[in-house]
C-alpha cells in the first residue's frame, strides 16, 4: 500500500507572517484572489481571562474521503494513491459544487480560467524529491511534510486533526 502524504502545521508556532502564502502563489503561478494556503486569524481573543492570538494557515487537508470529489458532476477530482487530491483543470466545468462541499472552505476559484483549484502539496515538486514550496520559507519552522502516519506518530492525532496542540509546544524540531 502506498503511504499517505500530508502537510501538518503547528498553529501554536505560526507567526502569521504570510510567507507560506506567497511562496505558494509564486510556485503555482496563482492569480489574485486564489489563495491555496491562507493565513487566517480571528484576531486577539480572550480565552479563560487571557488574551490569545492564533494564526491558522488554511489549506486543503487532502481528506481521505474527499467531499469535493463526491459532488463533482464530471469526475474532474481524483485522489492519488498517496492521498493527494487533484483537480483536472481541463475537466473542471467551474460549477463550484466542490467549493460548497468543502467543509474547510479552502477550495479556490480561478476567475481567469473559470475553474476550481486548491493545494495539491506541490506534487510536481515532491515527485522530484523536493518539499512543498511553503515549507522552507517559514521562519516559525512549523510546517511539516511527510508520511501521514509518521507525522501523526510524531506530533499526535489531536494536533493533526484539529491543527491545534493545546498548550503544549513542540520545540527543537
Amino acid at each position, binding site marked *: 500500500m502506498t503511504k499517505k502524504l500530508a502537510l501538518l502545521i503547528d498553529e501554536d*508556532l505560526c*507567526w*502569521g*507572517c*504570510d*510567507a507560506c*502564502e*506567497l*511562496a505558494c*502563489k*509564486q*510556485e503555482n503561478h496563482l492569480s*489574485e*484572489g486564489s*489563495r491555496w494556503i491562507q493565513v487566517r486569524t480571528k*484576531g*486577539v*481573543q*480572550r480565552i479563560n481571562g487571557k*488574551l*490569545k*492570538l*492564533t*494564526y491558522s494557515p488554511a489549506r486543503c487537508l487532502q481528506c481521505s474521503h474527499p467531499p469535493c470529489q463526491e459532488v463533482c458532476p464530471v469526475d474532474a477530482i481524483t485522489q492519488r494513491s498517496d492521498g493527494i487530491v487533484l483537480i483536472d483543470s481541463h475537466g473542471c466545468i467551474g460549477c463550484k459544487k466542490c467549493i460548497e462541499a468543502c467543509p474547510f472552505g479552502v477550495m479556490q476559484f480561478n476567475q481567469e480560467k473559470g475553474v476550481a483549484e486548491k493545494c495539491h502539496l506541490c506534487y*510536481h*515538486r515532491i515527485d*522530484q524529491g*523536493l518539499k512543498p514550496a511553503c515549507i*522552507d*520559507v*517559514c*521562519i*516559525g*519552522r512549523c510546517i511539516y511534510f511527510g508520511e501521514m502516519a509518521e507525522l501523526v506518530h510524531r506530533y499526535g492525532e489531536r494536533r493533526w486533526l484539529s491543527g491545534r496542540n493545546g498548550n503544549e509546544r513542540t*520545540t*527543537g*524540531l
Partner: protein
Amino acid sequence: MKGLAGQDEKILRSHCRICHGGCGVLVYVKEGRATKIEGDPQCPINRGTLCPKGIASLQLVYHPNRLLYPLKRKGPKGGGQWDRISWEEVYDLLVSKINEYKNGYGAESIVLGYGTGRDNEAFIYRFANLLGTPNVLTAGHMCYGPRVSTSIITCGNLPVCDYEGNPKCIMVWGNNAIISNPDEYKGLYLSDALAKGAKLIVVDPRFTKLADRSDLWLQLRPGTDVALALGMLHVIIEEELYDKEFVGNWIYGWNEFVDRVKEYPPWRVSEITWVPEEKIREAARLFAKTKPACIQWGVAIEQSINCVDNNRSLIALAAVTGNLDVPGGMVFYVPPPVMNASQFGLHRSLPPEQRKKRLGGEVFKLADAFAIINPRFVWEAILYEKPYPVKMVFLISSNPVMTRANASMVYEALKKVEFLVVSDFFLTPTAEMADLVLPSATWLEMDYVAEIWKRHGYALARQKVIQVGECKSDHEMLLELGNRLGQREHWWPTLRDALNAILAPSGLTFEAFLEIGHLQGKMEYRKYLKKGFSTPTRKVELYSTRMKEWGYDPLPKFREPPESPISRPDLVKDYPYILITGMRPTAFFHSEHRQIPWLRELLPEPLVEIHPETAEKEGIKEGDWVVIESPRGRCFQRAKLTLGIDPRVIGAQHAWWFPEKEAPEHGWKESNINLLTDNDPSTCDPAMGATNLRVLMCRVSPKKD
C-alpha cells in the same frame, strides 16, 4: 541548489533588498528574465526562509507601471506630464543645475536625501561630502541612527542580540521583529531562540503574536518606555540583582546614575506607565536573573521625544546585568575586513566650514555629530529660506510626502523647491512633483557589496541578474555623476572598480566575493577586557560625558510626551485618545509595495486598531471607514476592532497611498497618518531631533457618506 531549474534556466545567488534586507536568495533566470525567487538555505542570515515581500520582488521588478527610463517634467510642476530623456541628458542637466546652485548659493543649498535607504547610503554620503553639502536628509534622526549614535557615545558600539550565543531571556522592546526587519538579525533567529526555550518579555502597547508567545507582556502607556526601564533598573539596584564586578570595573558615573534611578520607584513608574507595579518587578527580576539575556530593541521607541534616553536606559539594563559583549547577550559584532559604509562615506572630506552649516546642527548636537539632520529644518529652509535657501532636493529612494511628519508642510516645501530630483521605482506622490525622475534599479539589477552599514558582522554579495529598461542602480548613477562633477579623483571609472576597492582589505575581487557569497568578521567576545569600551572614559558611560559636553542631561530621564492627556489636559475634551502610528503589516515596507498585487491582496486597505469598548462608545463598527483627527489634520482608515490595544489608545498604520488612484495625487491625502503628526522641533528629542510619531492625541468617529 534546492529548486527545480527548468531547461535553459540558471540559478544565481544574491541577497534581497526589498526591505532593509540582507536575506540570501536564489534567483532563477531564463533568457535574461528572472522567473522565481527562493530563500538560500546556505545563507547564514535567513537559512532558506524568506518573507512575503522578498518572494513578491518579481511583481515589483516587472510591474507594468515601473519607471523604465528617465523623465523630465513638461508643463507645470505636479501636472503629470513628462518627456522621456536619455541618461546623457540627465547627467548634463544635473551637472548644470548642481553647479548653478553650488556657485550661486553654496553647496549647502543642495540637499541629498534617502528614506530608509536602499543600501545606497554609503554612496549618497560620499557624493554629498565630496560635493560639500552637509545636508543629507535621512530617517536617521528617528530610525536606527539613534540606536547607533546613542550606543557609540554610551558604550562605543551598537550592541546587538547574540541569538547564536543562545540567550536564555529575550526582552523585545518596541519591536515586532517577526513582522518587520530589525536591521541586524531577522525574525528567524528570534523564533529559533524561543523554540529552544528562551524566556520572552515583550514591551509593547499592542498585543502582537510575540506578546502572545511571551512569558510577560508589559502593555505600557505609549511614550513612557524610559520610565519603565528606569523602574526596572530601580528594582535591579534595590534588590542587588546587578553584576557587581562589571559595574565596579566598567561603569562610569554609577553613583550619579543610582541617584537618578532612585527617582523612579516602581509605584511611581506604575503611575506613569500604566504597568502594574508587580509586573515591573517581575520583569526586572526575570531579565536580571536569567543569563545570558538580551534586548531586541526597535524603532518604535526612537520616534519619540525620549528617543535618546529610551536607548540609553536599555543599554543600561543590558550593561548592569552583565550582558554586554558576552555570548547570548548584547554583543558588538566584529566587522568583516571590508571598507565600511562610514569609511566609504568620506565624512572627513566635508570641509569644517561646510559642516558648521548643517541644518539644525546647532540644535540637535548628537545628530550633528553623526551627520544626521531633522527634516523640518529642510522644509523651513525651502519655505522661508532660513538660515539660507535650499534650492535643490535630490531624493534617492524616498517618499517624504507619505513618510515624514506634517505631510502638508512637506508637500508645500517640495512644491516650492526650485529643482526636485527623485530616483525611484514608480511615480510616487513625491516623484509626481519632481522636475526630474530617475528610474532606479532594484536589488536584482545591481552589483554590490551589501549591508556594510549594518553592525551584524557580515558583508553580503548582491549580484546583478537582470537588466530592466534603462534602470540604473543609484550607486552607479552617483559614481557616474560624481565623475562628471569634478570628483573624478575620489571615484572610480566603473562601479566594479568601486566594489573591488570596498573589498580590497579582504584581498578579494568582486568576482571572487560572488563565489563565496558573504564575508563574516571573526567574532570575539568581551573585547572590552583588552581595550575597554570606545568611549572617552573607556567605560560604559551611564553618565554620558559627551551629552554633558553638549549641554544635555548626562543621565537618562523621562519626559512626558509633548502631546498627551497629562501634558495637554486642555486637549482631552476634543481629542480624548492617545494615537500611536506606524504599526507594521507583513505586506509593505513603509510607503512601498502597494502596487504589488500579491502583497496588496494581503492587506487591501489601511487599518486603524480600536478597542471594542472604544468603538462602541464612538459608534464605530468593524470595517467602518473611520475619521482619525488630531489638532493638525485628519485622515481615513478602516476600523479593525481588537482586544489587543488599550481602550484609551488608537493604533494607525502609516505611509498609505493608492498607486491605482489618479495621478498626480494617488490619494496621498486620504489615509496619510502624517497629516496628523507634528514636526515642531520642540516636540523632537532634544539631542537627536527624533520626530515624535508615536504619541499624539486624537479623536475617532465613523466616516459619514
